[in-house]
């Protein structure tokens, strides 16, 4: 059973992974910019308290409380924003339809985000929508509050993830040691699978650190390993074992293919074990590369979009400059992720570059509008 192995370059798989994270981030920012530019109203200060309470509630770890908060975010915040839009455009929708649609939207949203095995696209879409809604509400904060909040969050993120006593780092390590998903709203990009892996009927793992547990079983879901695609062939036998574990019917295929490939299995197995152990060591939960998906916290989506949304209140060149800064920052963060192979804070670099973009553009536009500063002085003195 010869399989064509498409020679895959690192560029293919890494580039694909990066694009799969950049796309939803860009979509979220784009939607927030659109909302802000359509509904660009005056700043209302009373929304601050409601945002604060909801943001605080989101940090709670009780699972049903999480669902309730998500429902509130989707239902009420989403509803309010849709009401704003309805009023702006005078859409003649009636209340019955409106409430039915809103109820549907909120319930399916909660299910999508909290049920473990929902359609990936639906889950991703709803996560982007939640990020967009919360980000829009944050842009209603007064201007300086927003900037200070962003910088403070960036610094907190830096401290919380990198310091050994940082709460986020402890959380991630706890989740890894317990072999669980991180109990938070996390956007997970679809893992990149190559074409050869389509035919192996293996289970593609989405939670990467499980591999470290299963080195003994060779739960070989490194379908798209950057380093070797030969492991795909040995997957047949291995998925047999994994199949027994997870009660799948893949065993049948493993048995059929095993006799043919048995002689190749033995030495591949050996190599694969080494590869698996080294690779799964490389993939710690949030790693780049093989079967694991890149995970980006929803808070990162939210604060990127807040920055860009706030920039949208000035003009579109600022938006573009901030967007470029954030994307560059995210690229840098992903590169560092590939380098250091551990959980990294996604906020600091992007926010610093975004703010630098905003300030830099302001300087440039002031300069362009008024010529050099000496001209202004001359005019003032006159």
């Amino acid at each position: 059973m010869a399989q064509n192995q498409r020679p895959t370059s690192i560029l293919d798989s890494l580039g694909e992974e990066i694009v799969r994270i950049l796309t939803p981030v860009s979509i979220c920012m784009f939607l927030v910019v659109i909302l802000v530019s359509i509904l660009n109203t005056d700043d209302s200060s009373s929304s601050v308290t409601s945002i604060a309470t909801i943001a605080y509630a989101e940090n709670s770890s009780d699972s049903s409380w999480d669902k309730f908060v998500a429902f509130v975010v989707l239902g009420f915040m989403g509803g309010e924003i849709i009401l704003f839009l309805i009023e702006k455009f005078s859409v003649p929708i009636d209340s019955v339809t409106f409430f039915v649609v809103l109820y549907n939207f909120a319930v399916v949203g909660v299910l999508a985000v909290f049920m473990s095995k929902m359609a990936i696209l639906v889950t991703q879409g709803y996560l982007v929508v939640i990020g967009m809604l919360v980000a829009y509400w944050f842009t209603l904060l007064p201007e300086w509050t927003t900037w200070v909040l962003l910088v403070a969050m960036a610094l907190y993120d830096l401290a919380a993830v990198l310091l050994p006593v940082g709460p986020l780092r402890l959380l991630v390590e706890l989740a890894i040691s317990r072999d669980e998903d991180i109990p938070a709203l996390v956007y997970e990009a679809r893992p990149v699978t190559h074409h050869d892996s389509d035919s192996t009927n293996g289970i593609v793992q989405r939670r990467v650190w499980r591999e470290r547990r299963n080195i003994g079983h060779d739960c070989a879901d490194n379908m798209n390993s950057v380093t070797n695609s030969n492991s795909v062939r040995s997957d047949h036998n291995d998925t047999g074992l994994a199949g027994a574990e997870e009660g799948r019917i893949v065993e049948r295929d493993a048995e059929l293919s095993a006799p043919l490939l048995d002689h190749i299995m033995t030495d591949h197995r050996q190599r694969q074990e080494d590869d698996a152990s080294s690779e799964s060591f490389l993939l710690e939960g949030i790693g780049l590369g093989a079967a694991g998906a890149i995970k980006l916290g929803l808070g990162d989506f939210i604060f990127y979009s807040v920055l860009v949304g706030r920039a949208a209140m000035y003009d579109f060149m600022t938006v573009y400059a901030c967007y470029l800064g954030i994307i560059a920052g995210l690229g840098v963060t992903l590169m560092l992720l590939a380098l250091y192979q551990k959980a990294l804070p996604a906020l600091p670099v992007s926010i610093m570059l975004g703010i630098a973009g905003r300030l830099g553009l302001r300087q440039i536009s002031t300069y362009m509008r008024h010529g050099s500063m000496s001209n202004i002085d001359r005019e003032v003195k006159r």
Partner: protein
Amino acid sequence: MEASESTSPIPNNRTSIASSTPVWPTIDGPLGLSEDESLSYARRFYMFGFALLPLLWAVNCFYFWPVLRHSRSFPRIRRYVVGSAVGLTIFSALLSSWALTFAIGGEGLFGPVWDKLVMFNLADTLGLTGF
């Protein structure tokens, strides 16, 4: 092993007969559910959709799109997915006809009740957007 009726013994379905049955019932393929899990998911989505949740039926149809497309695959799942599709069309037909009648008919058809039912007036009266 009831699964054998739907999983083809040839792993690579793309190159075999054109109308072969898909191996994976969900749209996510190998990232999605196995057949037994998807049966319970399909059934649950179908049942919950009756709580005025046509969007759940829509998600059901979207998620199990391979089941819908290939008419002879996964007979047990297919029952629920087709039921969801039927429920979705009926519900959306009803809802859209009501919404369109309301929007197009306007005050001429409904009289003063229209002003009370329309959303932007209702939002103002209830103070939903004024904080």
